[in-house]
């Protein structure tokens, strides 16, 4: 069996470092020191409504970063600023060392930012495979003429991309729905296909907007496992918004907490959990 070089990396490392005792041991401490994305002083308002107000935080390469907060805290707005759907009035976004005032969606995608949506934005009329192939669009390079003829190199390229898509299908265990039109799938599977489409772009930064909303416990477990595996296998940096606190605390390396468009806490899950401002925001004056 051959696997081309574009394939998902699946070869495991040899178990080079025996730990001595036979008992299960936890993974080593995860250390992140290279900043991939830095948000500084970002403010965003729609007319008179302030969505984000002077928010700053960073996302390090390789980590799973959660953005949490009560409803209306500005979490989704934050993701939309990162991938360029919204343009902030103030502040800067530094991505991979380049400082800019605003991103543009297709530029963000081209530079390795992929995302999923709270309300699932799939191409409902296409099959699972076509959706994932669409995620590969930016990776396709052949010229228009070749494309028009669908010949020679363009076809070979199509095959290579198809193979990559198949690796994602395998990874997400959605072989059985490969040819199914996405609109006919149950909600949980649609979410998985959407993740697949985002992964197809081989993103460096993956933005997940409530990836587990509306799922049952089992589906949530599956999705958590996929998120961890993505981070693990591909080294993808992940920023996610999620409401289920137990999942957030389990999954993420660091958590930033927003409330009324302001950052009220930032740190490891333990630090955040102990933060009085966070407890206040969640338990205090409910404004959900």
């Amino acid at each position, binding site marked *: *069996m051959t696997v081309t070089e574009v394939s998902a990396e*699946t*070869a*495991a*490392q*040899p*178990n080079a*470092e*025996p*730990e*001595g005792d*036979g*008992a*299960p*041991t936890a*993974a*080593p401490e995860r250390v992140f020191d290279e900043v991939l994305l830095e948000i500084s002083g970002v403010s965003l308002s729609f007319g008179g409504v302030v969505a984000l107000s002077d928010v700053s935080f960073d996302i390090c390469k390789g980590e799973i970063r959660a953005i949490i907060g009560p409803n209306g805290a500005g979490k989704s707005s934050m993701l939309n600023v990162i991938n360029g759907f919204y343009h902030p009035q103030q502040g800067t976004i530094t991505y991979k060392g380049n400082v800019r005032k605003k991103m543009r969606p297709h530029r963000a995608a081209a530079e390795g930012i992929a995302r999923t949506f709270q309300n699932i934005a799939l191409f409902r009329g296409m099959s699972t495979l076509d959706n994932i192939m669409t995620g590969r669009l930016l990776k396709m390079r052949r010229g228009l003429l070749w494309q028009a003829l669908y010949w020679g190199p363009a076809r070979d390229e199509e095959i290579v991309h*198809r*193979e990559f898509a*198949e*690796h994602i*299908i*395998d*990874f997400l*265990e959605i*072989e*059985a729905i*490969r040819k199914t039109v996405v609109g006919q799938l149950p909600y949980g599977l649609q979410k998985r296909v959407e993740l697949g489409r985002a992964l197809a772009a081989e993103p460096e930064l993956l933005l997940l907007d409530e990836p587990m909303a509306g799922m049952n416990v089992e589906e949530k477990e599956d999705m958590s*496992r996929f998120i*961890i*595996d993505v981070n*693990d*296998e591909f080294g993808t940096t992940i920023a996610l918004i999620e409401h289920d606190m137990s999942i957030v605390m389990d999954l993420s390396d660091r958590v930033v907490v927003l409330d009324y468009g302001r950052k009220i806490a930032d740190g490891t899950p333990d630090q955040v959990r102990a933060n009085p401002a966070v407890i206040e925001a969640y338990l205090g004056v409910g404004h959900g």
Partner: protein
Amino acid sequence: MNEGQGAGVAATAATSAPFRPGASVDLEFDTFPKLLKRNAAVRGTRSAMREKDYGIWQSWTWAEVAAEVRAIACGLSVLGLRRGDAVAIIGDNRPRLYWTIAAVQSLGGIPVPMYQDAVADEMKFVLDHAGVRFAVVENQEQVDKLLQVWEDFPQLELVVYDQPRGLRHYRQDFLHDMANVLAAGQKFDSENPSFYDDEVAMGVAGDTAIMLYTSGTTGQPKGVVLTHENIYLTAINAAQQEGLTERDESLAYLPLAWVGDHIFSYAQSYVTGFCVSCPESSDTVLTDLRELGPSYFFAPPPIFENILTTVMIRMEDASALKRKMFSYFMGVARRAGANILDREPVGVVDRLLYWLGGVFVYGPLKNTLGLSRVRICYTAGEAIGPDLFVFYRSIGINMKQLYGSTEASVFITIQPDGEIKPDTVGTPAPGVELKVADDGEVMFRSPGVFKEYFKNPEATAETKTPDGWVHTGDAGLIDEDGHLKIIDRLKDVGRLVDGTLFAPKYIENKLKFFSHIKEVVAFGNQQKFCTVIVNIDLEAVGNWAERGGITYSSYQELAARPQVYDLIQEEIEQMNSELAKEQNLAGSQIHRFLLLHKELDPDDGELTRTRKVRRNFVAEKYSTVIEALYGTADHCQITTEVTFEDGRKGTISADLAIRDVRTVTAGEQLAAE
């Protein structure tokens, strides 16, 4: 039984079935690793295995498989596997897991496949009992389960996993990636080129080939030890009867830990050289089946039922023309299909219509089912409904029932081509001796009879007699053509006071074949004779009554009509005369019956929600009726509580007639013939 008596009884039924000798062990290739080497030599370039991966079918030739097995074996040996060590194999149907079985066998180890969906706690017993040293598993899911119980098993030394996904950060030194094991094996092999061949040569036919745990209905699972000889002879005997060749194709989708999969997807492939394909995932089996179109297929009845249901649902959505065509040609198939398959005479018109049906309906249908190329299609595990069975046969699929067990290395009986009867499980496979003991239990002796239950000599002695006969625990009988008919589990079969066999389920099912009878409850355990309480089928009997000008206004009224009693009596008498022909069951003919004034109902607790009779509940509730059945009166008074549709409760009282039924004695039976 002496000669003189034997001649007299032969006309009705027998207690043993005709024996056909089977193959004997080929000393040169008496173990599966040796068979693998043979296949690599004689059909090295033919496909041995396929797996759908990344959306396409990958395939391996026999030569490639032999090389993989060699590398895995050497790798396991480097890790310390020694002769006699037990190796657990856990996961879905993956080529590498099948190869691991062969690799372990090559080294004289004992493969112990385990159910991949068992939770960690369920695995404990087998891991402990079999004394598993190594485990070869599919993926992270299985590794996690083993880690959960790791502390409990000091003898479990290491785990090899096939799919590294998610396992990158597991730091335990006893976890090994199969890829590394393979690499180490190849290196070792190149340094010690004779090692593998020497190990394989050491194996002999009597070595344990595999250990399969069966979950008995009670108590702990038992480890059935099967030798290479057991499996080889059983596999080749059945393969020869069915004419399996290297050109056949099969799909491996049932659990590795089940003896059937081991024979169909491993042993028979090694014996005959046919190619086994593994599905992409357990969710894609039906799609993969369609793409592959195997010629040799096995499925338990529920799977066939699901497939049929899917087809029927899709037919209902089809256009009116298609629906008409479907029902018309299915009619033709019911009339002629099974006969054509059995090579019996069929009229020219029906033959032509059947051919047309093949073009328009059966062909496309079989293609959709993935069974268009199937030559042999087995079903077993439980009784298959006659309708379902006849449906598949009528569209030209050679579906056959077989009867087998883990203790027999699967095959005990197979329905032979051209002699298919829906209510029997066929005749003994070559090499199998079959008899029905005096207590009605089916017993067999064959080359496939298991060596022992691992570390359980008491159970072995209970099941296997010193001269090699095995108790199946099933009550059955052998009909005049030498076909085995399974009645029920022996423990569910009762006795009349004179010791005659009483098989309630068998009698009830036989009566329910009559369309006028909807439900039956038979009584007779520890009684002098058998009686039944009958529920008529309101629709069928209602139609019959209307045609005969019989008026009625309710179920109760219809069931009380003497003409209806006559109708049912006639049918019971018909069954009695059939029972009379079956030696062991002649004594359980029905002597008295009554038609119940109300339908048995799950709401009243008389049936389960899946519409099975709750025998004991009914016996208690209708105790007065049963007393009357065993009395002499020709009627009885009864008051019962009922629950109406709207949930209100009320009582119905009725005076029920009881009828005596004519029974057939052995003397009459002989006189009649």
